């Protein structure tokens, strides 16, 4: 089922994509450095915020190499970042890297949960709609999916919060839940994950439906029908497998949106995570934390895109062909 038989081509492909990803990451870090340079005013003062004491300033200047040339500073910035040295938090004194690593799992859990929900439900609904196009179910799904897609995630989050937490008291209002109790954590995950997935479910369902309908009119499907394969197997096995290819490509494009929306959802539900970290950093003028948080979101985004590229190559054997020719 997976196109794993083109070893040299695949290895080259992975290497190429990895190199491109690292390059982009490096570029993003440099970009971060560059935009900081353009901030009006005293750099140390801005970045350290209102808590800048002369001692802190001196230490900061030394770490960032502010007395050296700009290219050297850039190199220092990047190498510090790569080594994981993101500085220490002014308020708590902890290493910022630790703060980020504490918050990251929460965000990843949220993202994973909503991905799981949206992919499962999206594919399911899309298949059902394509199985009986024009039926009542199909029409209902069509209308609601558009509504789901276009409503901004944070609006959905607020509505969910309003209805299920505040009015009905079914689910907890805020927070991430007791770290020791997985069931409690799960309860706290439901609404945020739902808020994040709703847009995606609508989008994927629509996409899968459109892809399936197009595929179902192609000759190879007719061929399968001519050999007596059941319609159910045709839709859910043969056609769906082919429809997954553009779906994965599209999901790659949308991951950035998902990360952005995760920020809002975390803030609205007061969940611990990278989004809340960045936001509270902004509110508290704690810019080193903001910087670190942004770096990690970029890292996540670039890795996710890399993963999607790999998945795409595995799912579509035709990509391997261009690799074989190139290799």
């Amino acid at each position, binding site marked *: 089922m997976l196109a794993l038989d083109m070893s040299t081509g695949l290895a080259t492909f992975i290497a190429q994509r990895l190199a491109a990803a690292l390059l982009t990451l490096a570029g993003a870090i440099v970009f971060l450095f560059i935009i900081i340079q353009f*901030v009006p005013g005293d750099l140390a003062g801005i970045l350290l915020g209102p808590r800048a004491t002369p001692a802190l300033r001196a230490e900061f200047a030394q770490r960032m190499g502010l007395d050296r040339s700009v290219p050297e500073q850039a190199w220092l910035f990047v190498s510090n970042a790569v080594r994981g040295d993101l500085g220490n938090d002014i308020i708590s004194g902890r290493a910022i890297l630790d703060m980020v690593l504490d918050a990251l799992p929460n965000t990843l859990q949220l993202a994973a949960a909503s991905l799981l929900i949206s992919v499962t439900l999206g594919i399911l609904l899309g298949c059902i709609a394509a199985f009986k196009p024009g039926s009542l179910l199909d029409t209902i799904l069509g209308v609601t999916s558009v509504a789901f*897609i276009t409503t*901004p995630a944070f609006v959905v989050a607020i509505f969910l919060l*309003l209805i299920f937490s*505040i009015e009905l008291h079914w689910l907890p209002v805020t927070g991430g839940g007791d770290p020791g109790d997985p069931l409690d954590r799960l309860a706290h995950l439901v609404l945020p994950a739902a808020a994040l997935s709703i847009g995606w479910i609508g*989008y994927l369902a629509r996409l899968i439906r459109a892809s399936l309908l197009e595929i179902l009119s192609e000759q190879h499907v007719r061929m399968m029908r001519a050999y007596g394969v059941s319609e159910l197997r045709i839709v859910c096995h043969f056609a769906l497998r082919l429809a997954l290819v553009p779906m994965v490509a*599209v999901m790659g494009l949308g991951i950035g949106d998902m990360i952005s929306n995760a920020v809002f959802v975390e*803030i*609205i539900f007061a969940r611990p995570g990278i989004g809340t970290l960045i936001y509270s950093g902004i509110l508290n003028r704690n810019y080193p934390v903001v910087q670190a948080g*942004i770096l990690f979101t970029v890292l996540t985004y670039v890795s996710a895109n890399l993963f999607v590229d790999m998945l795409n190559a595995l799912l579509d054997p035709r990509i391997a062909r261009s690799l074989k020719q190139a290799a």
Partner: protein
Amino acid sequence: MESVWAILSNIWRNPSGRIGLVLVTAILLFAVLGPVLSVDPNKIAIPDRFQTPSITHPLGTDNLGRDLFARTAKGSQSALIISLLVVAASLLAGSILGILAGTAGGFVDRGITAIFDIISAYPAVILAMGLVALYGTGFGNLLFVVTILFIPQFGRMARAQTLSLRHQPFIDAERILGLPTRKLILRHFMPNVLGPLIVLASMNIPVVITIEAGLSFLGLGVQPPQASLGSLIKDGYIYLNQSWWPTIGSAVTLALATLGSTLFGEALRDAADPKLKGHGR
């Protein structure tokens, strides 16, 4: 003018396009006429706080007694103005950069493409948040920041169009006849690039509206006393326990605005060139 009418009637015939057109017109009217017809959106009247909808206050009042109808109308106005400005600016900047990259080639091309890639490496809102955090809030900054987010999309499309045009025989013919590059760009590349870009622009309007609303919701966008749909939702969010109305009015308006402009944008794309119906977001 005739083709505009043809496109509009095409959109009208498309059922979802019709809904989009209706919603967009409704929001436009609301945004333009609303502030004119209603009371002062900034008038504070504490005794009247948290009222439910009535004749005097069609959408109720907020926590400071301000009329929500007026504020929501003003918020829609901001949303529309900002989205139009941002889309126009990023279209312009993106097309210039894209055509430049496509025409010059080589180092310039790779440099510009790298810039696009780096900007796209950041999830949209994250980059916006970071930039606003560093450079401060304010209308100008907001416009600048959100414009940057969209430049890569327009830029890439402009570049792709330019590249495909560049290799056409009629361009070679013009070059042989001695047409300077500048005129080449103005006379041939720009008009051909603008078409698809305008369609892309119309599809991006709801995205800009959403991002601006999101930023304002976080307090990083439009600042008080200016109202944006996002900041109205934020104001209401804090007081959800006491009254739904401050949140509902602006949230529903935001949802309708994005829904309407999405449907309209898609119908416009289908009317202008059905081939563009791909798998893009």
